[in-house]
């Protein structure tokens, strides 16, 4: 809870002792990952993407330093150009550089994933905890709101919201947050309902702990893991939905580095001229591949997390 409050004498020793059991757990987790090659693939993919996102200014130096997310154009012709010396992955419709787009788009993808899922997680945990721990009328109200949201199709609701709020990437994220939180609130509520009945929670009440203390110290740490697994799976899914909205023209402004928009540019060039149907393959295949690998990476990582965190699969 707080090893910083210990007497200074044995502080360092205690800190070492306190970390040892945690290290043991960590070692066990890594062992689990090592044994499943698919989780390794997931990890490497996500690390690769993270590196691309971090190194973006070096991999693709921005042409407009004040607005690095604006994809540079190499002319104004509509017809895409194939990969060349200047454009590694070629250019897409309107001569936007595909390479620059996918590299800086990685940053956008991470931003969408983390922002959306992080916010959803926060809202879900707060509302779900209140709902699950207190029950009664509060629970009834929150759950009926959740029902209302979940009765509408996700993508359509998101589209409607973006249309109402105005086309921009921020509004896409807002819409995804509004659409996404109910599932999280419901999931954690269920887990809290079962953890609430555990005897150590009752023991904590007998000790005299306050409700807030019980929720944060006893209930949440034992109920949150399924939610974290779902969140890691959802980062990929949210990026996919955002890409879908961008593809439909509801997302980022024209020329903004975003994978969904890259695919949207390729809309007219999926099939090439007669006799050479694959002439413009790079316009759709390259951003598509990035989205595919990103989502795949998070899904594999989510599975790995489930292996590590699921108490049913753990020894003990």
């Amino acid at each position, binding site marked *: 809870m707080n090893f910083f*409050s210990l*007497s200074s004498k044995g502080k360092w020793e205690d800190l070492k002792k306190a970390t040892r059991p945690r290290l043991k757990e960590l070692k066990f987790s890594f062992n689990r990952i090592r044994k499943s090659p698919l989780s390794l693939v997931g990890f490497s993919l996500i690390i690769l993407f993270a590196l691309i996102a971090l190194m973006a200014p070096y991999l693709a130096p921005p042409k407009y330093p004040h607005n690095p997310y604006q994809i540079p154009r190499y002319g104004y012709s509509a017809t895409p150009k194939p990969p060349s010396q200047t454009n590694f992955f070629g250019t897409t419709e309107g001569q936007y550089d595909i390479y620059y787009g996918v590299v800086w788009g990685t940053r956008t993808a991470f931003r969408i994933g983390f922002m959306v899922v992080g916010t959803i997680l926060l809202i879900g945990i707060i509302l779900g905890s209140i709902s699950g721990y207190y029950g009664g009328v509060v629970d009834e109200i929150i759950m009926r709101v959740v029902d209302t949201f979940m009765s509408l199709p996700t993508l359509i609701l998101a589209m409607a919201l973006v249309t109402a709020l105005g086309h921009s990437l921020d509004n896409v994220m807002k819409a995804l947050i509004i659409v996404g939180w109910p599932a999280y609130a419901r999931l954690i509520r269920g887990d809290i309902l079962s953890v609430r009945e555990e005897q150590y929670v*009752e023991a904590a009440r007998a000790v005299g702990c306050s409700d807030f203390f019980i929720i944060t110290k006893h209930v949440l740490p034992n109920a949150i893991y399924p939610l974290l697994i779902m969140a890691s799976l959802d980062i990929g899914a949210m990026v996919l939905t955002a890409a879908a909205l961008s593809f439909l023209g509801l997302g980022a402004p024209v020329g903004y580095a975003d994978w969904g928009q890259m695919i949207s540019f390729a809309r007219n060039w999926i099939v090439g001229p007669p006799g050479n149907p694959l002439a413009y393959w790079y316009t759709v295949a390259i951003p598509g591949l990035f989205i595919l690998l990103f989502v795949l990476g998070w899904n594999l990582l989510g599975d790995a997390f489930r292996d590590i965190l699921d108490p049913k699969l753990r020894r003990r």
Partner: protein
Amino acid sequence: MKTLLEVSRLKKYYPILGGVFKKPVGDVRAVDGVNLKIYRGECLGLVGESGCGKTTLGKTILRLLEPTFGHIYFDVPQKVKNNISQIETSNNSPPQQLSKLTRKYDLAVFKKGQLKSIRRRMQIVFQDPSASLNPRMLIKNIVGEPLQVHRLVGAGDLRNKVLSLLYRVGLTEDHLFRYPHEFSGGQRQRIAIARALATNPDFIILDEPTSALDVSVQAQILNLLQELQRDFSLTYLFITHHLLVVEHISDRVAVMYLGKIVEMASTEELFTHTLHPYTQALISAIPLPDPTAQKKRIILKGEVPSPINPPSGCRFNPRCSYADKICRQIEPPLKDVGGGHYVACHKAEKLN
């Protein structure tokens, strides 16, 4: 002897909700009008079969469950208790006067702040130590939690205080930074006992503390509990279904059947002059660890009836071989038959 805890006419009903609008259609009468006195420094054993309401009674006393009706007095002068019952029985006194008194003295209606301060003095040890310790907390934090919640020690002293508690229950410094799953059942129960001792309470409810443990470990824990009782002058309510354990550890024993206390006496008196037919059957059913023992076993017919529709009259009458008309009609009161031996049976005098 001074009374530490008095429970008077305590009831705990669980409503059964039915229909679309969740209207109460009946009650599970888990605890149905229990009167109990626990004297300072004694160990009262509470025995009964599963579903008789003994655990519910324990938890209701601690207000982990909300009582439906009744009073719980913890360390309240006799004068005040008399006063309250006087006001209750007289019809013409104003209700404000009563509520003013109960709010101050009756644990059954305490508010959150009062409860927190009283829980410093009353603690509980649960049956299954693997379930009652948070699996994601280190031992130091589990044992230190009550100290922090009640702000009993300064931040610097926490470690030493926790350590002294661990030593007291037979654990060492090595155990301070471990998770509960790294311990054996007996050690976990020691940790739970250390946690209960942390606030230096007067009264501890032991809810089947040894039922999940092996015989040799059970002996360790029972010995430890007796030592602690002596050293800290603790008062115990020892809830169990195991009669031999109760005989070993308790000064007095109360036997519960279907939400009511049917017999209560000092341990020796209860085991030698058993009066209630249910207690007799219970005692005769214990398998004794002695293959040569000659036993006359009373085997009870049937099962414990449902506490939703308890039998009319004496609740034990459908299974009792002595039952007659009066037992089926009138519920016997728990009355003193001499020497602090209470029994709720119409036939008690005859059986004696």
